[in-house]
């Protein structure tokens, strides 16, 4: 895609207040998230051992993270002995350099890509473009985003914010070969994308992918997908480069029995996604390169509370149940990782020095729906709260909270404050000025009572009543 999230201005509340005004977006998101919520709930309910699978998934990931150095070395050995080449990248720039170099070594100027969060995170397409290499996204939603010069807004369905008529417009505008009578019927739009990419698949010599899982014991990489664009990219080109975050590792082959149940049901709400490809090293004469990516992950790993975010398998179930995401969409989060998981992952990967990143831990009502559906039991509210304690606070708020803390820490002070509020309640306007207007713009204030509960109790209220 031609746009990148890095250095995006603004903050979440500001972005969100604009997004909630967009009624088309609200409608698209509501429809999509409610549909997939229902599908997920149905297929999860089919498995009587879902909670046991979830507990196993969580523990496998925690065990892997605890022993990540050992398992990465094991992975490297297994891939190498199966004819692949392993590269290590400390950060985005290093990963982009490695990939560009590998593409240049083939003499090609074009690559096809399988949808991959890691390569979006490092801005690979933009980095390749600078080297004169064109990267073509092949997942339908990524294609819509790329052709529309747009940002992805969802982990699984990056074009979730677009409806069929908008997609039709993009295709008519950007695909020279589509007929003008193209309808906005999803099968017709899908057929247009199929034809658009067909030739490219058959002639491309280099493909770039990510991976959903890698198995240390065997050196196997695993990609789950639906459309077959993944299979096209993984099998037809002569050179395959996979850029994979170091946390995608699983220790043993057997562990796939857990994750191949957790991921499809949580993600697309299916018993199994249409296609899963697994390969170990260089297969069927292909040249295979694995780029292991850190890019901030080891910093996340060092945080005792925050490291659980590295369990994430990018299913996007948390986005689909999030009431905040449902109303604002993904762009407001200013990151390739939107929604609840983005609100804990982005500030950890990028730090909280920008206004936007510092606002992300507050982009939640802490309702806990994300934690309930997470297939690897990431306690997202816990991490949000922890990040909030590390985030910078506005000076006025800090002062107000200090005063509130001082009053609340002593019942005598609290009682005095309550009585003062009762005495002064007549002065309280219906609409408050300044920051407090955030409440009264849309809501009335509760009435301040004649006396607090404690004053009623102290003066013998309960017995008076009896």
């Amino acid at each position, binding site marked *: 895609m031609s746009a990148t999230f890095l250095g995006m201005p603004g903050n979440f509340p500001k972005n969100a207040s604009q997004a909630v005004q967009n009624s088309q977006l609200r409608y698209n998101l509501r429809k999509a998230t409610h549909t997939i919520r229902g599908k997920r709930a149905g297929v999860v309910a089919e498995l009587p051992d879902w909670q046991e699978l979830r507990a196993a998934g969580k523990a496998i990931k925690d065990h892997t993270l605890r022993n990540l150095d050992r398992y990465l070395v094991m992975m490297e050995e297994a891939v190498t002995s199966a004819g692949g080449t392993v590269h290590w990248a400390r950060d985005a720039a290093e990963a982009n350099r490695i990939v560009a170099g590998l593409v240049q070594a083939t003499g090609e100027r074009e690559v096809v890509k399988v949808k991959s969060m890691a390569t979006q995170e490092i801005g690979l397409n933009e980095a390749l473009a600078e080297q004169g290499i064109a990267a073509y996204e092949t997942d339908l939603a990524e294609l819509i985003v790329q052709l529309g010069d747009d940002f992805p807004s969802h982990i699984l369905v990056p074009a979730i914010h677009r409806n069929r008529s908008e997609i039709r417009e993009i295709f008519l505008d950007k695909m020279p070969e589509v007929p003008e009578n193209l309808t906005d019927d999803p099968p017709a739009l899908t057929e247009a994308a199929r034809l658009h990419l067909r030739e490219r698949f058959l002639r491309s010599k280099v493909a770039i992918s990510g991976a959903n899982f890698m198995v240390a014991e065997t050196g196997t990489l695993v990609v789950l997908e639906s459309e077959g664009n993944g299979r096209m990219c993984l099998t037809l080109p002569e050179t395959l480069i996979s850029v994979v975050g170091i946390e995608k590792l699983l220790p043993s082959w057997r562990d796939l029995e857990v994750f191949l149940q957790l991921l499809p049901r949580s993600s697309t709400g299916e018993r199994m996604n249409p296609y899963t490809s697994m390969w170990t090293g260089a297969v069927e004469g292909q040249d295979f390169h694995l780029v292991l990516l850190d890019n901030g992950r080891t910093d996340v790993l060092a945080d005792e509370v925050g490291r659980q975010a590295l369990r994430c398998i990018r299913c996007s179930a948390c986005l689909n149940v999030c009431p905040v995401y449902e*109303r604002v969409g993904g762009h407001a989060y200013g990151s390739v990782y939107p929604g609840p998981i983005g609100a804990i992952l982005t500030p950890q990967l990028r730090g909280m020095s920008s206004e936007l990143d510092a606002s992300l831990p*507050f982009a939640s*009502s802490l309702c806990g*729906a994300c934690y*309930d559906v997470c297939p690897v039991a990431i306690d997202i509210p816990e991490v949000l709260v922890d990040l909030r304690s590390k985030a910078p606070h506005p000076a006025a708020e800090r002062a107000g909270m200090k005063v509130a*803390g001082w009053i609340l820490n002593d019942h005598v002070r609290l009682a005095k404050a309550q009585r003062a509020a009762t005495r002064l309640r007549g002065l309280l306007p219906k609409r408050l000025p300044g920051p407090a207007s955030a409440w009264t713009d849309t809501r009335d204030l509760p009435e301040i009572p004649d006396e607090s509960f*404690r004053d009623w109790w*102290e003066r013998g209220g309960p017995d008076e009543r009896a």
Partner: protein
Amino acid sequence: MRVALFITCVNDTLFPGTGKAVVSLLRRLGCDVDFPAAQTCCGQMHVNTGYREEGVRLARHFTEVFAGYDVVVAPSGSCAAMVREQYPKLARPGSRGAAAIAEVAPKVYELSEFLVDVLKKDDVGAYFPHRVTYHPTCHSLRGLRLGDRPARLLRNVRGLELVPLPGAEECCGFGGTFAVKNPAVSAAMGADKTRNILDTGAEVICAADNSCLMHIGGTLSRQRTGVRTMHLAEILASTEEAQ
């Protein structure tokens, strides 16, 4: 049974009627209600807004105030969840604070839990002849896992017609300081919640948390809908004689 009432700072300051209802209900059910006067606030607002230091101080205060009691009842799913679910994460493992929390936290019950699980009552002899819908607040639904306890209590209230709330399990948009830090999203969530409430045709929207009801009620009142908010305790405290 001797019960310590943890009124919570929001109820104490803004909704004393809820506290009075809890006292009258628990006395009616034969409990000896004590109100430890030194109590203040569980610290949830501070902790959840990122002021951990102040929050920890309030948590320490809470554990000191309620240390001697066998049962602590709070008419708030959110504050009870704070003590039970979040307090254990605030103290360093093995510290004195951790031990104090481990001692107190399991004795803290949300009101409906106390009624159903401890007193073993799902009929408290209440009378409330109105059409009511119930919003399970997030921390009582997903934090404490109250399940159908509040609904069971409400279904046994004489004269009460309990109507299901569409999208009940969705957050109302309050979220503590979220309501003012992200007012646009909070208001959008509140608007959807109130639309669902109005669709039920209920006269009263009931919940186990006055903080959420303050947001829902503030929205309903601004829209001049005429729908009242009532804490669960207030409905359960109503009797035929009192009507």
